């Protein structure tokens, strides 16, 4: 536990090698089995096994040897100013990452390493293009230690080498949000995946030759049902309906069950805590992830909900942050909660939810009308072409249904899309189907742009686009005067602080 920054190169945990071997074997088992079946088919089993067994053993052995070499040649050292990793069996590579450049450290546990109590430590440098440095695998304690180390380095409070360093466990943490198993399952019910249903449905109709019955064939269904309940067959039409309902119902069940299982795997034992380094999120059943989101790096918030879950008051909170969370810069802070549970988390990030007194504005009706007119003009051209092809009915349908749908769409977008600005924040809200509220801090934006196409210039509206680190934010179709006002207000807040002050939070310490 001692020695904070000893420069001696260390190896990853020896059990890494075991993990690699296990995953390697599981990768090899399938090809070997397939090969085995092929051999068995040939019939000359004894000859073949004599021939193949040494070959298989040689391949497995070579792989394990290589895994061992890789493990033995990979060392990392934790220096005064950086973390260095030397790796490579034949060609050697040395990489050094200064602490200042490390945006975040995340720990990830996949199934096999978890059995061994190992973690993969990822150092994110936010340079675009994913993780720049990863160490697989280290003991859990070592992972925690490295993370603490990087965090304290980055905070600027450089701890001199001392053995009475504060252990990670005493770091105080406050639980902000947790999901009970019941909540996770409820969440899963809402995660009904139409895509899975479509895939399973398509699959079922593709591989129906494997099933003992024809899923889409009503007559076959009737025969199936005729066995146990002869009276059903007599009912004829009713049996068809029951069969159809059964097929649809089982597909829906598959969708629901997949949703629940996927959600349980991902969100099990979800815990969001406030530590002195930021918001710490742990979740997952098989693969448990542990992530700390530094609060001062949060650039904006996003509160979303779905069409159905809105009726029950369920919302999700995402943090738009500078450091990427395995690819996406959106960290899910609260995936599924009521607004009164989200509010304390929002307060913790230094943002605030839109208040009741907020002065919301809508887009200019002219903008939505123009949008509709442009869309309708395209529809008219299309139906003119259809008409020329001699399909009068289709052309008429296109004009009425397409036009009606577009008019409704634009009206709803106008009705529900809003924006507002107050002393410190900027709010946008859009979507009637699944409302999505974005909250950005005025001071944390990167650039402001007013965009106007020819139509907008003629009709006096404009789009506002904001440069937001890790996300996008735009307000469409607002009056030019208002766009200029918002721009000037936002720019004034932006120039109050320099970028590095935003990123580092409390820089002025030294």
């Amino acid at each position, binding site marked *: 536990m001692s020695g904070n920054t000893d420069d001696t190169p260390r190896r990853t945990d020896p059990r890494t090698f075991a993990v690699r071997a296990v995953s390697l074997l599981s990768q090899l088992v399938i090809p070997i089995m397939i090969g085995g079946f092929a051999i068995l088919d040939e019939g000359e089993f004894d000859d073949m096994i004599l021939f193949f067994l040494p070959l298989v053993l040689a391949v497995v052995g070579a792989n394990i040897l290589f895994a061992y070499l890789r493990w033995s040649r990979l060392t990392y050292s934790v220096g005064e100013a950086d973390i260095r990793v030397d790796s490579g069996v034949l060609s050697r590579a040395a990489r050094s990452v200064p602490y200042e450049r490390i945006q975040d450290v995340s720990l990830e546990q996949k199934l096999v390493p978890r059995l061994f109590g190992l973690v993969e430590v990822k150092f994110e440098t936010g340079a675009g293009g994913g993780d720049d440095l990863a160490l697989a695998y280290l003991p859990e304690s070592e992972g925690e230690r490295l993370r603490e180390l990087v965090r304290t380095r980055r905070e600027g409070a450089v701890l001199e080498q001392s053995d009475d360093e504060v252990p990670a466990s005493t770091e105080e943490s406050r639980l902000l949000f947790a999901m009970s198993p019941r909540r996770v399952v409820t969440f899963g019910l809402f995660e009904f995946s139409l895509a899975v249903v479509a895939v399973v449905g398509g699959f079922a109709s593709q591989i129906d030759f494997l099933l003992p019955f024809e899923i889409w064939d009503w007559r076959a269904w009737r025969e199936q049902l005729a066995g146990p309940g002869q009276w059903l067959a007599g009912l004829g039409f009713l049996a068809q309906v029951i069969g159809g309902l059964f097929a649809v119902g089982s597909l829906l069940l598959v969708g629901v069950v997949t949703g629940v299982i996927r959600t349980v795997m991902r969100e099990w034992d979800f815990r969001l805590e406030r530590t002195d380094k930021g918001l710490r999120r742990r979740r997952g059943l098989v693969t448990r992830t542990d992530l700390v989101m530094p609060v001062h790096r949060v650039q904006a918030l996003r509160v979303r909900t779905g069409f159905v879950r809105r009726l029950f008051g369920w919302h999700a909170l995402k943090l738009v942050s500078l450091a990427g969370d395995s690819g996406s810069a959106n960290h899910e802070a609260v995936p599924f909660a009521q607004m009164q549970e989200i509010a304390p988390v929002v307060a913790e990030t230094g943002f605030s939810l839109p208040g009741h007194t907020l002065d919301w504005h809508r887009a200019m009706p002219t903008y939505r009308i123009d949008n509709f007119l442009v869309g309708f003009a395209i529809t008219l051209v299309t139906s003119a072409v259809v008409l020329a092809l001699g399909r009068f009915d289709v052309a008429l349908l296109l004009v009425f249904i397409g036009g009606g749908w577009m008019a409704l769409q634009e009206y709803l977008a106008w009705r529900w899309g809003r924006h507002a600005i107050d002393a410190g924040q900027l709010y946008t809200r859009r979507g009637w189907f699944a409302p999505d509220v974005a909250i950005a801090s005025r001071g944390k934006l990167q*650039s402001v742009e007013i965009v106007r196409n020819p139509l907008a210039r003629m009709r006096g509206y404009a789009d506002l686009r904001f440069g937001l680190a890790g996300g996008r934010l735009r307000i469409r179709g607002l009056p030019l005067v208002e766009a200029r006002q918002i721009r000037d207000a936002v720019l004034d807040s932006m120039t109050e602080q320099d970028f590095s002050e935003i990123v580092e939070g409390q820089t002025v310490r030294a």
Partner: protein
Amino acid sequence: MDDADDLTQLDPAYKSMLRLQLAIAALVLLVAATIAEVAIPGWTGAVWIPALCVAAYALIRVPLRRYHATGFSLADERLRVVRGIFFRTDTVVPFGRVQHIDVGQGPLERAFGIATLTVHTAGTHNASVSLPGLRHEDATAMRENIRAAIRRDTR
């Protein structure tokens, strides 16, 4: 120009450079038109005349419009770039949000002694804002200007 409040115009050499750039494109177009003219039988000029019209418009009108549509300002420690004939964009980046700055010169730009200034921000949208058609000395001076402002802010 709808919002030309206090924008600085680009270097006039930018017009000449654009014209030369477009002339090269027009040459390619005319060569293609000539081939088409020869290949397609019929009245001489069916391809030639429209092609010539396009080329003339591109050489006479486009550089002027582009030149007049573009402007910039460095007031209040903010870089403001107004661009675009059809889709007009008006972008403002405060110096405090600039991550790094490039001054680039293509071969044609070098011949005319002009350069493109590009500032990079951390935003996903407008990750880089570029301003073409500056005198090279001006571009480097602007770069130094912005860099000094950044350093002053961070220290």
